[in-house]
């Protein structure tokens, strides 16, 4: 009697386990991203073929991983079976040839249903997924990339193709400088939605650049674009008006020098301003205040504080040379031969304390960023290269002084803003 009870218990447990496994498998399949298109395609095939038997072949002309094809085939088989079409039987006169294809806009699953000499075609659309990977490093400083949420235009569409010159988070809003306007975005549902836009008639350039500088109190900003200077301010709207309606931006034609870097204390006034050549997209070399030496034309500048006090001015020249100006003397920096034209000085507190993050690409399709320490006259790598998803078109020190902001244009010509932080390893 006792043995009988044990047998029944074991049998129940086994049945429960099998049931759970089957249910799990079923759930897994119903949760597959391919379930819906497979069911839709099977339905269309069944409508053409009617109940019966057919030989099924599945081939892949898309970017779907080969490892996923058996499960897709299984889904189609199951859905066909549910509609009375049995896949299999090489002797069957009917054949179903499924091709997993794709075009520039979407995935396309195509079924050719062959009955004797007649072939009929049906197809379903499948949404394409995206994946991105973040590379990390294992040196003294680790660069970490954080993509900012996507920008959504007022019309509701994405604005990934609009060239972004600069961006900053101010008063809980994202202020973005494009080549023809300054837009204010409000955060909603994990995205930045454009809420205000102010036209800016800057001179168009092939390699357009701009600077957007929040004020120390974080309530307003000054923006510089070729031939144009804008100032924006925010005041809390009255009478329950929308928070984002408090922005005012005014632009005027201007050839005033641009602030090229802040002093170590970001709350103070710009430490150096430089005149910008709007027809050639570089700084002329004329700076204010005068730092005691004639500077060559340059693309970017930064300031590196020295442990013993004082600071060195770092210049990325138009001629590709990187130089420092310290105590009125200009000297070349070694180890910077493969640097790009943009640089951002960040105070990470790790390694040498201050790093220069710079773009560097060589002939690779995508740019990369890397942090360097410059204790004297040599640039010493302090991080591994951080791969970016395209060309870095702008790079500057973020408002916190501890991270850099990068604008990246990918191969499809779409722009995104990334925050790159230098973390201690």
């Amino acid at each position, binding site marked *: 009697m006792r043995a009988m009870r044990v047998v029944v218990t074991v049998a129940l447990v086994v049945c429960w386990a099998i049931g759970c496994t089957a249910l799990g498998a079923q759930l897994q399949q119903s949760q597959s991203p391919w379930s819906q298109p497979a069911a839709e395609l099977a339905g269309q095939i069944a409508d053409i073929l009617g109940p019966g038997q057919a030989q099924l072949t599945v081939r892949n*002309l898309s970017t779907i991983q080969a490892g996923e094809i058996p499960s897709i085939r299984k889904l189609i088989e199951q859905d066909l079976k549910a509609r009375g079409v049995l896949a299999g039987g090489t002797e069957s006169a009917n054949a179903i040839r499924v*091709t997993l*294809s*794709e*075009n*520039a*806009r*979407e*995935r*396309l699953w*195509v079924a*050719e249903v062959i009955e004797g000499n007649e072939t009929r*075609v*049906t*197809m379903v*659309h499948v949404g394409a997924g995206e994946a991105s990977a973040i590379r990390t490093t294992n040196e003294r400083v680790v660069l970490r990339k954080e993509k900012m949420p996507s920008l959504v235009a007022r019309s509701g569409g994405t604005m990934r*193709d609009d060239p972004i010159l600069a961006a900053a988070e101010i008063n809980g809003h994202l202020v973005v400088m494009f080549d023809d306007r300054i837009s204010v975005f409000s955060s909603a549902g994990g995205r930045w939605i454009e809420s205000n836009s102010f036209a800016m008639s800057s001179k*168009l*350039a*092939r*390699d*357009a650049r701009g600077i957007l500088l929040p004020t120390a109190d974080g309530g307003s900003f000054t923006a510089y674009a070729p031939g144009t200077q804008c100032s924006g301010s925010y005041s809390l709207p009255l009478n329950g008006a929308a928070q984002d309606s408090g922005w005012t931006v005014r632009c005027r034609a201007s050839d005033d020098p641009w602030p090229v870097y802040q002093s170590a204390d970001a709350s103070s006034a710009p430490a150096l301003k430089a005149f910008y050549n709007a*027809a*050639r*997209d*570089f700084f002329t070399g004329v700076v204010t205040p005068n730092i005691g030496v004639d500077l060559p034309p340059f*693309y970017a500048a930064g300031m590196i504080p020295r442990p013993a006090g004082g600071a060195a001015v770092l210049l*990325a020249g*138009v*001629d*590709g040379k990187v130089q420092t100006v310290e105590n009125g003397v200009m000297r070349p920096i070694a180890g910077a*031969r*493969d*640097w*790009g*034209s*943009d640089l951002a000085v960040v105070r990470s507190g790790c390694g040498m304390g201050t790093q220069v993050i710079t*773009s*560097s*690409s*060589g*002939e690779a399709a995508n*740019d990369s960023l890397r942090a360097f320490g410059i204790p004297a006259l040599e640039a010493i790598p302090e991080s591994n290269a951080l791969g970016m998803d395209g060309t870095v078109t702008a790079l500057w020190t973020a408002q916190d002084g501890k991270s850099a902001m990068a604008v990246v244009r990918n191969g*499809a*010509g779409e722009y995104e803003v990334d925050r790159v932080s230098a973390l201690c390893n």
Partner: protein
Amino acid sequence: MFRRFAISFVFTLAALGATARTRPHYGGTLRVEVAGDPWQRPSGIARRLVYDGLTQLDPSGALQPALAISWEQDNSFHRWQFRLRPGVRFHDGTVLTSATVVASLKASCSARCPWDAVKAVGPLVIFTNDSSMPNLPALLASDQFLIALTANADGKTPAGAMGTGPFQASDFKNGVLALAANENCWSGRPFADSVEIRVHRSIRDQWLDLGLGRADLVEVPAEQLRQAQQQRLSVLTSPPIVLLALQVSDAGLLANVKVRGAIAAAVDRSALYNVIFQKQGEVTASLLPQKMSGYSFLFPTARDLNKAHELRGGLATGELTLSVEGEGAMQLAGQRIALNLREAGFNVQMAPVGVQHSDLMLRKFLISGNDPSAALERILWDADALVPVTEQTSADLYKREQTILENRKIITLVDLPLGYASGARIRDLRVRADGTPDLAGTSMEDAR
């Protein structure tokens, strides 16, 4: 042999000297060499440098504003209005107005336009048509509708090519077309100060000049891409955007669709792809390439000589003439097709080079942009068979293509890429959606 070695050696040295990427420099002269006429449609390299369209395609093939900043349709795509970009001037200083645009558009297509009427109203250019024109903005981005000044403020015809593009024609001497940077270009001044285009230069001489540093950008025909890569040239290619197709007359015996079907079945596409074009691009029997449509594989490409004989049914077709657009590999492709057709019982003779009117024409069609509906309409326009393509879904476009191809007036063969090789000075070179190099966005490493 020595020449080939010399070219390889020079490029190896150039590669060793490559430096890292910095911001692009302004200045310098880009030296380009081409085998054909730089003004010739649809891929003449000078056209896109000197002229702009109302719309343009970005490198990804998406439609973007150009001389028009916005456009909207009315009355179910029977009426379109385009708003012009303010402040744009032609190279001679003449202001771009809706009237100058209308005059240019009328000159570009005269009686054979995809619209019934185009008129200027203030800053607007308005198109109207009895038929729907759903793809007009994309069509206006094509090479045919680039805007040129037809008469200046004095009513006189301007001397030479006058557009609004990043470069202006400055001189043509000793086979070299000189273009100078347009300092006031609406889209920004180009990086290079000037471009020199040496015309009618053989491919062999182009490559030699590139190797010796006498040229910065040269052409690489599809059939020589493999060779260029073997010689370690820095090669840039477009996607397969040139559709090679046989356009078949429907006159005389060719009015019989079965005879045209026999021609389609007799053509050996694989031989063209493997032998003539050295496995570049892709074999196709559809109008839109697989990457654009996703369903191109549904159109069978295999040769079926038995079917060709069966469809011809012993009919004597008399002598058919086959003309070929282009030289070199195109002529070889034409000869190969003539051979295929003779094997199927057709008496085919090659027309002399330059003859365009014949029973069969081997032609190139440009497929640009990422909108399959607009691309299909553009092919039909180029084939003198313009009918609006309103289909949007892949299933509907497939049916439409099937209907077009069933009448066998266009027999598609191979999709080919366009290729270029550049020297070590060149940087940021990109290929536009129409396969031409974007020289306005290109700069040189040694420019200061």
